[in-house]
C-alpha cells in the first residue's frame, strides 16, 4: 500500500470517528475484521510465539473458576435426596451419560464419565463466554483451546488403543480395514493413516473452533451493521430509513444470538460425542 493511500485512509478514519450511513463525509461501512480475535495483550511474557496475557487468558481463568465452582458446590454434599443444585448437576451428568457416552461406548464408558463431563462443561462454558455481556468472546474461537482438548483426546485414543490391543494391534486395527483385499492395501493404508491419524484430530479441533469463530463473527457483523445503519440525524426521510435498517439488524442480532446459544451447546455436544466415539473405537479395536 502506497504512502498516499495510507494517508487518505488515515484521514478518512480520522474524519469518520463515528461513522454512520448517509453521513456527510461518505464514510463506508467498515466490517469487523478478524482482529476481533486478536485482543491486545494486557502484558507480554516477552517470549517467542506467545500471545501474552490477553482477554482469552482472563476468560479461561473465569471459565476454570466457574466450572470448578459449579461442580464443587453441586456435588460437595451430594445427598441421596438431591437438592436443587445437585438436581441440575445430575441432569447434566445424566445427559452426558445417556446421550453421549452410553450411545457410543456402552457400559465401558462409565470409567470415562468424569472426563466427558469435564469436557462438556468446560467447552460449553468456554463457548457461552461469547454471549455473556462484558466478556463477549468465545474462548474456543482461539484454535489453541480446542486444539489442546482434541490433542488430549487423540493421545488418550492412542493410549487406550495400545493398552487394549497392544502397539501392533492398535495400529493395525486402525490402518488396515478388515476384509480388504491384499492388493489394495498400499492404497488404503495411507488413506486410513491420513483419515484416522491426521485429519481426525484436526477436524475434531477445527470443527469446534470454526463454528465458534464464524458464529462470533456473524454476531459482530450484525452488531456493527446495526451500529453503522443507525443514523437518525441523517435528515429528512433518510433518518427514518436508517432507523428501519438498524431495527432489522437488531432483530437479526437477537435471532442469531439465540441461534448461537443453540450452536454453542450443540458444538459442545458434538465434541464430547466424537471424543467418546473415538475412545470407544479404541477400546473396540479393529473395525
Amino acid at each position: 500500500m502506497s504512502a498516499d493511500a495510507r494517508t487518505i485512509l488515515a484521514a478518512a478514519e480520522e474524519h469518520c470517528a463515528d461513522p454512520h450511513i448517509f453521513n456527510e463525509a461518505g464514510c463506508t461501512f467498515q466490517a469487523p475484521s478478524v482482529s476481533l480475535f486478536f485482543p491486545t495483550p494486557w502484558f507480554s511474557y516477552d517470549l517467542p510465539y506467545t500471545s501474552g496475557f490477553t482477554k482469552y487468558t482472563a476468560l479461561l481463568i473465569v471459565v476454570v473458576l466457574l466450572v470448578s465452582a459449579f461442580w464443587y458446590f453441586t456435588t460437595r454434599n451430594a445427598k441421596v435426596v438431591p437438592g436443587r443444585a445437585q438436581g441440575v448437576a445430575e441432569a447434566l451428568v445424566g445427559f452426558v451419560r445417556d446421550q453421549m457416552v452410553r450411545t457410543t461406548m456402552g457400559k465401558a464408558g462409565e470409567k470415562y464419565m468424569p472426563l466427558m463431563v469435564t469436557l462438556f462443561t468446560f467447552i460449553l462454558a468456554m463457548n457461552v463466554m461469547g454471549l455473556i455481556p462484558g466478556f463477549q468472546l468465545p474462548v474456543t474461537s482461539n484454535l489453541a483451546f480446542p486444539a489442546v482438548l482434541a490433542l488430549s483426546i487423540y493421545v488418550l485414543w492412542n493410549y487406550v488403543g495400545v493398552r487394549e490391543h497392544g502397539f501392533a494391534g492398535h495400529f493395525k486395527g486402525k490402518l488396515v480395514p478388515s476384509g480388504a483385499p491384499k492388493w489394495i492395501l498400499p492404497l488404503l493404508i495411507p488413506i486410513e493413516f491420513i483419515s484416522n491419524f491426521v485429519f481426525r484430530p484436526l477436524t475434531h479441533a477445527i470443527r469446534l473452533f470454526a463454528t465458534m469463530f464464524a458464529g462470533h463473527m456473524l454476531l459482530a457483523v450484525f452488531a456493527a451493521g446495526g451500529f453503522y445503519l443507525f443514523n437518525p440525524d441523517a435528515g429528512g426521510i433518510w433518518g427514518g430509513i436508517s432507523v428501519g435498517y438498524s431495527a432489522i439488524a437488531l432483530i437479526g442480532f437477537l435471532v442469531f444470538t439465540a441461534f448461537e446459544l443453540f450452536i454453542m451447546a450443540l458444538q459442545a455436544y458434538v465434541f464430547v460425542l466424537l471424543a467418546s466415539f473415538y475412545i470407544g473405537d479404541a477400546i473396540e479395536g479393529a473395525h
Partner: protein
Amino acid sequence: MVEMAAEENILRIHWDEFTFGLIAFLLILGVVTKLWPRFTKALDERANQIEGGIERAKKAEAEAEEIRQQYRDKLTEAHRAAGQELEKAKEQGTVIIAEAREEAQVEARRIIDAAHAQIEADRQHAMAQLRTEIGALSTDLASRIVGESLGDSATQGRVIDRFLDDLDRGDRPAEVR
C-alpha cells in the same frame, strides 16, 4: 484491515495459550474426578435405598395380607361361635318351655284329680247322709200316710233299699210321684 489479516493468522496456536488451556482442562478434570466418588456414591446409595424400599414395601404388603387373613379367619370363627351359641340358646329355650309345659300339665292333672276325689268324697258323704235322712223321712211319711207304723224293721229296711235302688237306677218309682 487487509494487511492486518495477513499478519493475524486465525489458525495460530500460541504455546502459552495452549499450555494454559491444558492446565485449565487438567484443573477442571481434577476437580470433577475428585468430586466424582461423592456423586456416584450418592447415586448408588439412592439406587440401593430405592431397591431396599421396594423390598420393604413388598414385605410389609405380605405381612399386611397375612394379618388380614388372620383377621378374616377370626371373624369367621366368631360368626360361627355366635351362631352356635344362638342355636344352643334356642334349644335350651325349647327344652325349658317343654319342661314347664309338662310340669304345668302334671300340676293341673293333680289339681283336677284332687278335685275329683274331693267331689267323689263329698258325693259319697252326701249320699250316705241322704240315705239315712231320706230313709227316716220316707218311713215317717209312709207311716203317716199309711197310718200304720212299719214296725217290722226288716220290711222297713227292704222298702227303703228298693226305693234307693230305684233312685240309683234313675227311673223314678211311681209311688213317690
